[in-house]
Structure formats: structure tokens, C-alpha cells
């Protein structure tokens, strides 16, 4: 999809279709398939701790991809993604408890409900852009947060609501090992869907709106329609991610879905690379491992003679938050195109290794 990376010698494209494949070369495709096959075997190979991390990556990754479609591909800004994620979580639990719909069906339904809510809040998006939109979605974040805390019938109010595990033909996915497969399937499915969306007419329209919306409008792309659609798709992804989160944890409480979470989603896509599907996943992995790495680092420091500073050890929670802020700033100043771009550069460097001209 990107022409930045160099193609191997002799790999010429003769049709538009060839130029538009999901995987750029056959090798990349094979690597991806092998990676997924390896991941399928992961529950038997790695520690349960890494499985929980992977599950976290998968539900956050799905939601982050939605945000990247909105921000990276359509050029809109959303500061309310965390609230939409939460709405998906509550909606799925609510549908399951109140109407007895099977969980497996609840997840996509929650996605569609979130899509509806997202589009209501996205309505101003058809008229405003940039900064005004950022502030409108900020309002959405606070209004939804308030709604979660208040609507007892929907979210269980301050007590939160419980969510049943996913159940397929009598088999409950209630352990980390079994849920891992659900998470993996959802992640692969949603990412392939995202790739395909971006190759379709709608996806190209999104990119046109981002690159120059006036020209896009002149060329016959309905701005209102595509901006709103982008909001819808993005909230749909957030809803699916949130629903998976709910059924994984088995319990949803209103406190988690704050502005900070929305900012974390934005941080993921900025670190990974705006407008890059591969980058989204990189950013999510980075953001999931960052706090773990900090914890590990402080744990090591505690063991040494000189490093056992009580202020650092006690302030770990704040250091994690600060690190997120700092990482956002540093990436924007030094690598605004994100890890996906840096990855391409590193690949090119090694491809031409001794003769880099």
C-alpha cells in the first residue's frame, strides 16, 4: 500500500489490482501467516502473563485501529474514543443481561450501537473540523462518562455491571488460554477488514477527504457523508474492542473510561504512525509494554544498592503517566510519522547495507 519501502528486484506491477494488495510482497504475506500460526500455538508455549498482555493488545488494538481510520485516514480528531470504547463494553453487557441475547451476537450488536452513538456525536463533524471537532468530541467524552455513572438501567451506575464470558455451543471461553483464541480471531478479522476497507472506494474517499477536503468535494465526494461514515466506522471498532474487553474481564465499571484513556488511544496511533494499519499495531504493542517495562525497570532498580529510592518506587504510578506524556511529546518532535515510518527506514538501510545511495 505504501510506496515508501523498496520492492525486490524484478517484482513489477502491471495492474492496479496488483498495486493494491494487502501484503506488499509474497514474503511479507508468508511471514504474516507464519506469525499467526505461531500465535495459535502460543498458549502452549508461553507464560500466562504474556497471554494476558496479548489479549490486552488485541482489544486495545481493535479500538485503536478504529481511531486510526478516523484520525490517520480521514483527518478528523477524536478525544472521545475512550468513552466510545466504554460504551461498547456497557452496551454488550447490557444487551446480554437485559435481553438474553447470546454473547457472541452481543459483541457485533454492541459495535452497531456504539456506531449509532458515535455518529450522533459526530454530527457536528460534518460542519466543523480540526480543533472545533477536537473540542466537540471532548464534550462527548464528558457527557458519556457522566451517562455511565448515572444510567443505572444501562451501566449499573456506580456499582458497574457484570458481563458473562463468551459462550459458543456450550463451550465457555472463560480462561485466558481459551479467550486468547477469541482475541486472536477478532484481531486478525478486524485488521483484515480494516485493510480491505482502506482499499475500497470508501477508504479512498476517506484519504481524499484527509488530503484535501475541498478538492475532494469538488471531485464529487460527499464530505458530510464520509466524515460521518468515518466516525461511524471508528466508533464501531471502539465498540467491538470495548465489548471484547467487557467479556474478557467479566465486569465493567464506570471509572475506567476517562479522558486519559482517550488520550492513550491517540498516543498509540501517533506513536505507531498515523494512517498506517501496521503502525497501529506497533503503537499498541509499544503502549502496552511501556508500563510493563517501567515496572520491570523499577523492580530491578529496587534490587540494587543505589537504586532503592523510595520516591521512585512509591511514585511508579505517576512515573507511568509521565512516561506516556513524555513519549507523546518526544515522538511528535523527533518522529512525527511514527514507528511504522522508522521501521521502513531501518528496513531500507539494511537492504542497501554497505551502499546506502
Amino acid at each position, binding site marked *: 500500500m505504501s510506496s515508501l519501502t523498496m520492492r525486490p528486484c524484478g517484482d513489477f506491477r502491471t495492474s492496479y489490482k496488483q498495486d493494491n494488495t494487502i501484503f506488499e510482497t509474497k514474503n511479507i504475506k508468508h511471514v504474516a501467516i507464519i506469525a499467526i500460526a505461531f500465535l495459535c500455538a502460543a498458549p502452549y508455549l508461553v507464560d500466562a502473563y504474556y497471554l494476558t498482555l496479548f489479549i490486552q493488545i488485541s482489544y486495545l488494538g481493535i479500538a485503536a485501529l478504529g481511531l486510526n481510520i478516523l484520525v490517520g485516514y480521514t483527518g478528523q480528531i477524536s478525544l472521545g474514543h475512550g468513552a466510545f470504547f466504554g460504551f461498547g463494553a456497557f452496551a454488550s453487557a447490557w444487551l446480554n443481561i437485559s435481553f438474553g441475547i447470546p454473547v457472541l451476537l452481543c459483541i457485533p450488536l454492541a459495535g452497531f450501537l456504539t456506531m449509532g452513538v458515535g455518529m450522533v456525536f459526530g454530527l457536528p463533524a460534518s460542519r*466543523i473540523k480540526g480543533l472545533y471537532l477536537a473540542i466537540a468530541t471532548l*464534550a462527548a467524552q464528558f457527557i458519556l462518562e457522566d451517562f455511565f455513572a448515572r444510567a443505572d438501567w444501562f451501566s449499573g451506575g456506580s456499582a458497574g455491571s457484570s458481563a458473562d464470558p463468551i459462550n459458543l455451543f456450550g463451550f465457555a471461553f472463560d480462561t485466558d488460554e481459551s479467550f486468547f483464541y477469541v482475541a486472536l480471531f477478532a484481531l486478525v478479522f478486524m485488521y483484515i477488514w480494516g485493510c480491505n476497507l482502506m482499499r475500497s472506494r470508501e477508504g479512498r474517499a476517506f484519504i481524499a477527504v484527509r488530503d484535501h477536503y475541498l478538492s475532494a468535494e469538488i471531485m464529487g465526494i460527499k464530505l458530510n457523508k464520509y466524515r460521518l461514515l468515518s466516525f461511524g466506522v471508528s466508533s464501531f471498532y471502539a465498540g467491538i474492542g470495548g465489548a471484547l474487553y467487557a467479556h474478557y474481564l467479566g465486569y465493567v465499571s464506570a471509572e475506567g473510561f476517562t479522558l486519559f484513556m482517550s488520550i492513550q488511544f491517540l498516543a498509540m496511533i*501517533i506513536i505507531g504512525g498515523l494512517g498506517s494499519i501496521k503502525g497501529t499495531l506497533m503503537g499498541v504493542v509499544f503502549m502496552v509494554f511501556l508500563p510493563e517495562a517501567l515496572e520491570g525497570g523499577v523492580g530491578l532498580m529496587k534490587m540494587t544498592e543505589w537504586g532503592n529510592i523510595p520516591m521512585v518506587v512509591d511514585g511508579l504510578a505517576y512515573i507511568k*503517566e509521565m512516561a506516556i506524556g513524555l*513519549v507523546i511529546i518526544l515522538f511528535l518532535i523527533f518522529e512525527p510519522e511514527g514507528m511504522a515510518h522508522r521501521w521502513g527506514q531501518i528496513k531500507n538501510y539494511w537492504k542497501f547495507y554497505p551502499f546506502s545511495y
Partner: protein
Amino acid sequence: MNFELLTQLIVNGLIVGLLYGVVGMCFVLVYKSTQIVNFAQGEFLLIGAWICWALLIYLELPFIVGFLLTMVFMAVFGILLQMIVLRPMIGEPIISVIMVTIGLSIFFQALMKWIFGVSAQSFPKVFETESIQILGLNIEVAYLMSTVIALIIMVAFYLFFKYSKYGLAMRATAFDQQIAQSLGISVKQVFAMSWGIAATVSATAGVVIAMVSGVSSSLSMMGIKVFPAVILGGLDSIVGAIVGGLIIGVLENVAEFFDSQYLQIGNMYDIAPFYVLLIILWFKPYGLFGTKDIERI
């Protein structure tokens, strides 16, 4: 209907609204001259209040000295922030710029929590009497002082932009950066100055609020509450910021009144401004006094 309570709330709303206006003014100042939306505005209030608190408690300075030292610190802080973090962002797309200020806001919020803890601390007493009666209404002296300070700041802003050389340079830069630069105005200096002023003035507001209700991390919410006010007034209008601030200040108190008396929904004080914000954006995105963007290809 309880008229006494309502008038009391409206007066409170006007006083708080004036402070919103002051913070909003700083926001508009930064936006106009540097085209940066500052999501870290609330942290300026927070940092200013904590620094002043630390100076008064740990060094036991008299209030005026501590207050002035805080101002000096914040001016330097704002200028350094602009030079180190925001200068490289000139010319970047709007999402990057917004995200940098959001990153700053997270960073400083966590830093302040780390250094000073999460629990609210009360300010040492500055005035002898807590509150006085004016026309039968209870008004806290600190609020009275905040009103006076807010009015002084507003007049100072007006005079600064009208008569001083630097104020004119800033207005010229806000009008057109390239023309200003070709006329010999140092745009870099103007950018740094506007951040310095914004940080200092916001910190003043922070200290004033902290004197009434104590210092805690919730102070940074002011930075977010300012958005409804600024959008209502129009993003690039200083007068609009003040009017918007007053309207939002009164509105949240009136919403609180109707909520507690009749509706019983709860939490309207915090949420009402955001509903208003959404409605404004639906119908009048450029606010009351803002200039509408006209775009050419």
C-alpha cells in the same frame, strides 16, 4: 422558587465566570498569536498554585513575595516551554500540535501529583475575615480579590495591546505572520512572549482559586472548562472569551440551581457547559464573536 439562593448563585457564577474569562483570554491569546490550541492551560493554573503554596508553606514567605516569585517563575516556565517543546512544532498539522499540548498536560499533571501528592492542601490564610456581606449577599473576600485582580488583568491586557510596542507586535503577528516578520517583528519573540504571558496570568487565576478552595489536581479541570467558554465566545476573540466565561459561569450555577430544586439529575454543575458546547457547535460553530473561516483553493 428560592430567589435568594438563585441570586447568590448568579453572583457566584459571575465571579467564577470572570476567572473563566481570564483563563479563556490567555487561551485565546496563545491561539491567536501562535495558532496553537493549548490543552495544557489547566496545568498552568495547577503548577502556579502548587509553586505558590510551596513557597508560602515551606519557605514561609509573605504572600505578596511568594505570589510575585510565582509570577516570575511562571513567565520563565512559559517561555522555556515554548522554546523547547513548541518551537519545533511550528508548521506541523493541527493534530500534532494538539497532541503535544495534551502530552504536556499529562506529563505535568502526573509530575505535580508525584511531587505534591494527590490530597488537596489548603492555602494559608491571606485575609483576616472570611466573607463579608454586600447587599445581603455573602461574598468571600478572596472572591472579591479575584474579581479585582481579574478586572485589573483585563484592563492591563487592553492597555498592553493598545499602546505598548510589544502588544502591537503581537497583534501584527496575529494578523499575519509573514507580513509581521517582513516588517522586522521577531515572530519567535512574540511566540515566546505570548506563552509567558499566558502562563503567568493563568497562574494568577490558579492561585486565586486555590486560595478559596485549596490546591489539588482538580484545578487543572479549569483548563478544560474553559473550552465551552472560549468556543461560545469565538476562538479568536478576546472580548468573546470574557463574555463566554461570564455566560458559562452563570450557566453552570443556574443549571445547578434548577437541578437541585426541580430536576434532581445530579452533577449538572460539571456537565451542563458541555451540553451547551455541543449545541453551540451544532448551530454556530464560530461562536458569538469569532471570525468565520473563508477558504480558498
